């Protein structure tokens, strides 16, 4: 395979194939994002605040368009606290008003109190804009790998090492 690199065109084709794998994966993610209108259409549950409905490591699929009805009480939504990048998965328990400016209050099923303390200082309620999607489907446990990788960074090195080993062995 290396002899193919002598020809610049062949090398370009090899490079292009590799680049296209990356770009296709990225564009599929972006396509999903655009269809669901959510910046992050698939999230992993990080805490146990929604038990018994969702456990840590569950993979959630989000939909962020209000085609049929407005976001209402009882829906499980994902939102980002202003200024922080951690998505929180909780249920809407109160709604005041109608339309995009309605005030929404959320609470985790497994939490004692509602989310008022979690919101940014000075913010007492969420509005529709803060929500990045409602959960419409989920796969249990599949997302646990990402939790493991972020809590034990050395696992990333081990995984990369294993993948490198597989590639080298395949050549032989």
């Amino acid at each position, binding site marked *: *395979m290396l*002899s193919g690199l002598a020809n610049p*065109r062949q090398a370009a*084709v090899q490079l292009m194939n590799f*680049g296209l794998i990356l*770009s296709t994966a*990225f564009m599929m993610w972006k*396509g999903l994002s*655009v269809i669901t209108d959510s910046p992050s259409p698939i999230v992993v549950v990080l805490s146990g605040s929604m038990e018994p409905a969702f456990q840590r490591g569950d993979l959630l699929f989000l939909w962020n368009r209000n085609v049929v009805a407005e976001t209402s009480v009882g829906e499980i939504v994902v939102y980002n606290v202003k200024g922080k990048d951690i998505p929180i998965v909780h249920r809407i328990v109160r709604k005041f008003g109608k339309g995009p400016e309605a005030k929404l209050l959320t609470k985790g099923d497994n939490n004692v109190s509602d989310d008022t303390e979690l919101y940014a200082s000075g913010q007492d309620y969420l509005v529709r804009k803060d929500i990045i999607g409602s959960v419409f489907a989920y796969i249990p446990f599949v997302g646990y790998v990402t939790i493991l990788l972020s809590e034990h960074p050395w696992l990333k090195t081990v995984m990369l090492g294993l993948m490198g080993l597989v590639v080298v062995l395949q050549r032989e």
Partner: protein
Amino acid sequence: MASTEKITVYNVADLRATTDDALLNYLNSLGLRQSHTLLDTRLALGFSAFLLSAACFAWDYKLGFESTKQYTLIAVILYTLLNGALTYWIMFVEQGTIYAGSTKDGKTRIRVISDSKKPQQKGEAPLYKLRVDVEDVKTKKVQKIELERRFSEWFDASGRFVAAPFQTVLAQGIPLVGRLDPKRAVAAAPASGGQGMIKEQFAETPGYTAEILDAIASGLGESSTTAATGFSANQDAGKKRRK
């Protein structure tokens, strides 16, 4: 001349890739001019799709999702179209062509499509299939030639590629090549090296040992036996072996 690189004889993809490269070099060395249009179009499509996705990544990273939603939507649609066009190009236009070119005077065009096939029986060498279209530019007549040979005819037991028998196969199988390389066209037709048995016979009595191949490479052209009707002799030998 024997190449010094060794490849695994059991890896059909490697066998085919090495043979394809050798074919390109051989045809170009005969003075045929290679046309790069097929490959260039593929590169143009692929790279523009990649650049589009890179741009999308850049604006999404810098400006966030909400403000660039519309552009991202357009980018996704365009990317799908480009990728679809690329797939169409590879599947229906290129169709596995490894060489497209013409003679220096531009009167004849040649196109070579290669493929490999697993052997029918266990222990036999895999097959290298070629489809060659030779087109006369003026009359637009296309001569289609199909060749099917075993890789063991030009790879020795240890995986070294030997150019001479391969070039002879091409020169005797494709009249245009035979015209451009008369030396090979009348050379000794290569025996079905190894009689098709890679595992056992390559170990004990290979059809072509490295020494025999080197001898052929150096002393070719003088000691021909079945030479005169080299092309048809080859065809018959091929038919016999396929049983």
